[in-house]
């Protein structure tokens, strides 16, 4: 019996039992779709990882305060001066960008007032860091820092290019809404008790196209020169340490240089902090890996769902094959009587089940592709990350499921006693 004829007989049977076949298709295709989704997620992750790495640079370090550190009173903490010292000692570094941060400064403009914005004290080097913005006006410059000028740069939220389904409950804060709809360039605003001139506005990329998935600045930042920040902190008398910074971002250039610089920076800071290790130096690549670990976990869960669905589909196929065999015992007898070998019968049922799996796989690919396309609109890379071999692999899995789950029923069919089968009504 030729292969094509066996498949044709299979198609015949599938067509003759539409509901039964459809149910098998359905579960197989759900499984296949889940598989496909997992593939695209895993692949998308690597694409994102590389994109993010290109954006931040391969030699990124971040120095942070150690949160749970109990000071012995020797160290002044992580300060602007630390950043200046690092810059002085290592002028070859691509970036040394200290960031100080203060919450709840009252923002006022015209009749609008809000405590939402977060005040960031930065140097011009901040602009070397993950720059994804479009700038109007100018950013903070060296003069601003040198003379502690009352100037600020405001951030305009990027909104959505296409709002994804999960963002239905996303609501911009009142301040973000205000910042998005009022052009304050060259206007004067009040922060706390101080008047500032808005010298620049940076606009974020749309949220769904923002490649900075690894670190979002939550809240609504307003950037001012770090010297100005220190000055108003001293004046405001609200406690806190005016010199202290939240983090120092460093770019050493190439990834291979990271360990060496980690050691050097640690030595310099330990000396400046009089032996107190109240800071930690984070390799950005590690941070990515951690985030990716979470994503991998999610992918694994989806994969588990996919496997369960495929198993269910497989059991469905087994069921269909068994049912097919029971309803065709007579036919098996007839075929045996006219000369079919056990092998012919076995092959026939195997191929029927594999055909079922094949079409389930095709349907699943359509379903999965559609679903991923729909979900994938929020970030362009997810769908682009699907490769041809993913389709081939999922199709192979579907056909393989049909094969594996029909082996036992098909074997049983081939072992039927022809005399008994012929007598069966």
């Amino acid at each position, binding site marked *: *019996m*030729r292969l094509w*004829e066996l498949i044709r007989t299979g198609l*015949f049977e599938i067509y*003759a039992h539409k509901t039964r076949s459809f149910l098998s298709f359905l579960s197989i295709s759900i499984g296949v779709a889940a598989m496909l989704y997992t593939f695209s997620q895993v692949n998308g992750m690597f694409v994102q990882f590389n994109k993010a790495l290109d954006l931040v640079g391969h030699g990124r370090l971040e120095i942070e305060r150690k949160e749970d550190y109990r000071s012995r009173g020797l160290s002044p903490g992580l300060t602007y001066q630390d950043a200046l010292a690092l810059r002085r000692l290592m002028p070859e570094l691509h970036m040394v960008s200290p960031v100080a941060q203060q919450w709840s400064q009252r923002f006022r403009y015209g009749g609008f007032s809000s405590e939402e914005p977060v005040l960031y004290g930065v140097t011009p080097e901040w602009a070397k860091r993950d720059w994804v913005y479009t700038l109007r006006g100018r950013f903070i410059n060296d003069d601003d820092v040198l003379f502690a000028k009352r100037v600020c740069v405001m951030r305009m939220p990027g909104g959505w290019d296409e709002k994804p389904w999960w963002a239905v409950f996303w609501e911009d804060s009142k301040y973000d809404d205000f910042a998005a709809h009022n052009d304050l360039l060259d206007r004067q605003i009040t922060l706390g008790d101080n008047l500032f001139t808005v010298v620049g506005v940076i606009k974020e990329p749309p949220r769904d196209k923002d490649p900075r998935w690894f670190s979002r600045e939550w809240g609504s930042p307003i950037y001012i020169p770090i010297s100005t920040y220190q000055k108003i902190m001293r004046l405001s008398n609200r406690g806190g340490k005016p010199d202290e910074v939240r983090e120092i971002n460093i770019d050493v250039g190439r990834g291979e240089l990271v360990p060496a610089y980690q050691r050097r920076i640690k030595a310099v800071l330990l000396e400046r902090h009089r032996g107190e290790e109240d800071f930690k130096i984070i390799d950005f690549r590690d941070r990515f890996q951690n985030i990716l670990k979470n994503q991998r976990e999610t992918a694994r869960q989806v994969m588990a769902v996919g496997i369960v669905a495929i198993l269910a589909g497989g059991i469905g196929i087994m069921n269909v094959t068994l049912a097919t065999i029971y309803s065709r015992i*007579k*036919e098996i*007898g*007839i*075929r*045996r*009587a*006219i*000369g*079919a*070998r*056990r*092998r*012919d019968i076995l092959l026939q049922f195997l191929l029927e089940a594999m055909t079922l799996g094949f079409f389930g796989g095709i349907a699943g690919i359509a379903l999965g592709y559609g679903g991923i396309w729909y979900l994938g609109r929020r970030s362009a890379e997810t769908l682009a990350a699907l490769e041809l071999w993913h389709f081939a692999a999922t199709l192979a899995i579907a056909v393989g499921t049909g094969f594996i789950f029909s082996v036992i029923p098909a074997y049983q069919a081939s072992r039927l006693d*022809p*005399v008994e089968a*012929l007598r069966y009504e």
Partner: protein
Amino acid sequence: MIRFEDVAKIYGTGATGFEALGGVSFQVRAGEFVAVVGPSGCGKSTLLNILGLLDQPSRGLYALGGREVGTLGDGERSQLRRVKIGFVFQSFNLLPRFSALENVALPMSYAGMGMEERRARAAGLLDRVGLKSKSLQTPLELSGGERQRVSIARALANSPDVILADEPTGNLDSRSSAEILGLIRELHAQGKTVFLVTHDPGIASSAERVLSIKDGRIIEDRRR
């Protein structure tokens, strides 16, 4: 051509065993037309199943064409069945979703014949049984007599030496019966060895030899 020596078929074992065929011996020359008669449950069908290699004897020797075949494995028996034997059943046993042509061609596909050759050959066979015009109809669209003619054409698919007909006219009216018997006699005239199982003495009388079976034994072997 066909030799049975003390062939028995016993279902079950020991005291509960049922002897469907209890030591049957006979010989049939190539080209003979043998009617097998007897009441129902006498072992006619068991005899036919063993003859047709669908079943294996529990004991005894079955030689087909000078070769012991009763003890062959399933694969070899299937192969022999395919080329040496053609079955005609009382209930036709055609595949309902296949056309007459496809039904006739099916045994050829198991023999590995190509599509074109099969079609041509099957069409020729249908023509021979007078069903040329109905080759694309399914069995459900055919009358009983026509169905039996399709199944005779199918039995001839791989040019077998032996035709085994199990009550071929049991489900047919008298006119169709006469047609089918005519066809079977024609096959005999062309040199096929024919076994015809029946309980109708009138039909048996058209054979040149009658084997009467009762309770699994041959009680009479009569030649005319």
